[in-house]
């Protein structure tokens, strides 16, 4: 069971998101209406602290459990794909109040709607896979 640590980390991450209300539909509505600092504080705080650790990874001060240098995967470049893909994602996120990780967490709160979201998201990812070579980058 070499992956048990990822299972435990998933449980931890889900509890953090749940307890800090970062899975609440209302919190995302508030965020996109710029009416609350809460979600900006959470995401911004996570980014700033992660950026500090990214520097430690980069300099090899923290290595992974195997002793390898930690290097985040480079994201695919392309203006259209990131802006258009991002906008599509944002529309889905803004309406449903759920992004990828929270969909799994919400299964534990509101099973049926989250299951519909998950299956539809898988179909969406599948459609992307079918079209991936034809779409502009």
């Amino acid at each position: 069971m070499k992956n048990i640590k990822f299972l435990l980390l998933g449980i931890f991450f889900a509890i953090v998101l749940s307890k800090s209300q970062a899975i609440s539909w209302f919190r995302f509505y508030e965020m996109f209406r710029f009416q609350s600092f809460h979600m900006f504080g959470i995401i911004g705080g996570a980014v700033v602290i992660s950026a500090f650790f990214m520097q430690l990874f980069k300099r090899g001060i923290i290595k992974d459990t195997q002793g390898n240098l930690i290097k985040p995967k480079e994201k695919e470049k392309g203006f259209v794909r990131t802006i258009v893909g991002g906008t599509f994602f944002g529309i889905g996120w803004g309406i449903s109040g759920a992004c990828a990780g929270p969909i799994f967490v919400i299964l534990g709160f509101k099973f049926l709607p989250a299951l519909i979201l998950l299956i539809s998201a898988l179909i969406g990812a599948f459609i992307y896979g079918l079209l991936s070579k034809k779409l502009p980058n």
Partner: protein
Amino acid sequence: MDFIFEPWPWFVGGPLIALSLVLYFYFGKNFGTSTDFETLCTMAGAGKFSDYFKKDWKERDYGLMFALGLVIGGIIASNFLIPDQTVNLNPKSVQELTEIGFLNVGNQYFPDEIFSNEAVFSLKGFLILVFSGLMIGFGTRYAGGCTSGHAITGLSSLQFPSLLAVIGFFIGGIIAAWFIIPTIF
């Protein structure tokens, strides 16, 4: 113990999300949740239809374990750790949502107008969920990441594509919250 049962402020949630990311990388893998959508497609046999999904899902089984953990964590949190789901919203948000017909705004994490059985089994409610899900799944794979992969991992490692993607997330979210939600409700 009281702390466990009260809502956690942003300055607790933010750092603990960062800790999750650090551990994910420390365990030797790249943090990002929406890759698991692809892995699940591959498991379901999507490789028969497109080479895009012809990958060995077993190489990404750690992500599926993480996703399973998310579900278990959600069950634990909803049943044992959140006795009161009230969300302390900006009164303006409450007022706006009430004006377009939402009831009991902020009394629980998820509005009945989208997440109740009544909504799910109505044609409109079902279509809202399906449309959102399709946009999330398609959009995140086209953009190459979601909130965890782009907004947190990508921005913190100073990757330019992630900045563009996050700008896209907000364009989409603003369209949804300012135009789509007031129109469909």
